[in-house]
């Protein structure tokens, strides 16, 4: 019998989410041979965690920290560079960049984590059920995921924002909806590899009910890998929020978000580049840290096949 390579996928990755995930989560039969380099969670991993903790902490404590009101214009000279008056400078309306960046972090993080949490819950459930029960159920459900994936993401987001008005909730809903399909697909693939293994067959032979098998055999295996790419997914969600904010579809002004700040600074690149670059830098570091942490965890949880 010819051995087939992994089945050609029949779905299109949605805007960014699955692609980034695929880049850092290689196909099931490809395994890294860099042994000690990635085996232990190294310095870089902890640095990433430290940065994430810093951002989360700052965002959570934003109201308590001694920062000026991010929406208050005229606190400083408009467009002043970092260091002149304020630590990170001021934007075109004289608002404090540090305060705006910290408050912007709040939006990014809330949207990022909650949208992926929702996506994991729904998409994960769909994926596990589809991968476990297979058959007609799987075909229908994955077909629906197909449609969702083929749908241009932007149109969906725009439609939602037009319906419900731009707000943090709308953006979260949009990104959560868009994340369901890629997450379902990945979790289904993961479930498939486990559901076919002997220990599941053994459990079933012992008379375990489906629900029990799913909860005590399948989930503990799927969950670690799922959680580690969830970190990467959060990074993608943050970027997506940034993109939507960039287009004016996220939380409206004067509430700062990193994407809208980057957009605001776009026309002032010559005179005051820091207006775009400060939020860019923050977003870059956060996304990088999330990517790195997620990838390190994934490397660690991956079952390694020995050679010779």
């Amino acid at each position, binding site marked *: 019998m*010819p*051995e087939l390579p992994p089945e050609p996928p029949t779905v299109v990755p949605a805007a960014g989410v699955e692609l980034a995930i695929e880049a850092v989560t290689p196909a099931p039969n490809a395994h890294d041979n860099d*042994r*000690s380099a990635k085996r232990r969670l190294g310095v870089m991993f902890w640095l990433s965690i430290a940065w994430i903790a810093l951002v989360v902490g700052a965002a959570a404590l934003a109201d308590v920290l001694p920062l000026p009101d991010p929406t208050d214009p005229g606190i400083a000279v408009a467009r002043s560079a970092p260091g002149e008056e304020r630590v990170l400078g001021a934007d075109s309306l004289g608002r404090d960049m540090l305060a705006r960046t910290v408050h912007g972090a709040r939006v990014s993080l809330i949207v990022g984590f909650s949208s992926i949490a929702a996506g994991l819950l729904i998409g994960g459930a769909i994926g596990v059920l589809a991968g476990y029960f297979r058959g007609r159920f799987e075909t229908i459900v994955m077909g629906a995921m197909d449609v969702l994936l083929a749908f241009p993401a932007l149109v969906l987001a725009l439609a939602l924002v037009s319906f419900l008005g731009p707000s943090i909730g709308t953006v979260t809903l949009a990104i959560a909806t868009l994340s369901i399909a890629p997450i379902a697909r990945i979790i289904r693939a993961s479930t498939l590899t486990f559901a076919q293994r002997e220990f599941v067959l053994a459990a079933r032979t012992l008379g375990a009910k489906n629900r029990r098998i799913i909860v005590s055999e399948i989930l503990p295996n799927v969950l670690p890998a799922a959680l580690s790419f969830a970190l990467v997914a959060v990074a993608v969600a943050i970027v997506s929020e940034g993109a939507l904010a960039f287009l004016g579809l996220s939380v409206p002004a004067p509430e700062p978000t990193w994407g809208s700040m980057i957009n605001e600074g776009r026309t002032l690149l010559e005179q005051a580049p820091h207006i775009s670059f400060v939020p860019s830098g923050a977003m870059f570091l956060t996304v990088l840290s999330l990517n790195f942490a997620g990838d390190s965890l994934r490397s660690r949880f991956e079952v390694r096949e020995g050679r*010779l």
Partner: protein
Amino acid sequence: MRQFPDRRPAGEALLDVVDLKTHFVTERGLVRAVDCVTLSLERGQTLGIVGESGSGKTVLSRSIMGLLPRNARREGKVLFEGQDLVPLSARDLRDIWGAEIAVVFQDPMTSLNPVVKIGRQITETLRHHLRIDKDEADETAIALLTSVGIPEPKRRFNEYPHQLSGGMRQRVTIAIALSCGPKLLLADEPTTALDVTVQSQILDLLQAKQRERFMAMVLVTHDLGVVAGRTDEIAVMYAGRIVERAPTYTLFTEMRMPYTESLLASIPRIEHPSHTRLRAIPGRPPDLVNPPPGCTFAARCPYAQPRCEQEEPPLLPAPTPGHTFRCWYPVGTPEGREAFERNLAEGRPQTLAAAQAGPA
């Protein structure tokens, strides 16, 4: 065609392995996969290397070739036609690989590239080493396919590995190995991945080709049955060492090392009554990073005495010439028998197991 003249002075062996050591540098420490192995082989001879998984037999064959991963360290000498292969550069080794020393791997499904046609997998070796043109290479390849017993060779030439059965695929790898007329063939478990019915066909083929071409052959296997009628000499490996070496007939009739005896005893025989308990060797091979002191087989040996766990037995000669072994209390000797009785009286589990389970 390029000539490979026989360079060695008369009387010298084709392959002379002297004190070969192969260590792997790993996180846990140095894995001594091959620990001081010496053997030699003449043209036209077959050497069987027998051992269980983890004994180092595959690493040995790779070490002889020099095809080892990055973290491997080799010491000792591998003299091929008088030339030491160990210090050779990769480039020089590549001239020898495929042309003078050839390999047949264990699993033909994975040793053939699934996306490359069979024909090309043969002709590429031919064209690289012998520098012949495409047409001549194609013809030679088809002739080779015929000579290894593949029907419809022209058709198979253009097919892919997955279109052939397991046995046929192994014939193809044999064809590839033989293509440039090597002097030494290393067959690493060539039949393990095949159906039992096909196994003897393949072994017969190898033997026939060897005779035809007057090649030296090393047959690596875990199965004593494979080497029984097909080798001139057998070396038994355990934990990276050769623990017994003898001409084939001698090994089976005058074995000395208890490990060899256990191996032989573990083969189920058709003349045994039904429900005879299988005689397995209890325990597991030792840790190759931190091997225990003394004889490495002591922990599993039915004959072991205190001395075995302290002093490592050297390679000692046996009465029959060409027979060496490593044991303080060898099988078939008075010391050995005493040791066995002593252990039996003390109730040593390994000895009890050896005594109980069916006739040897």
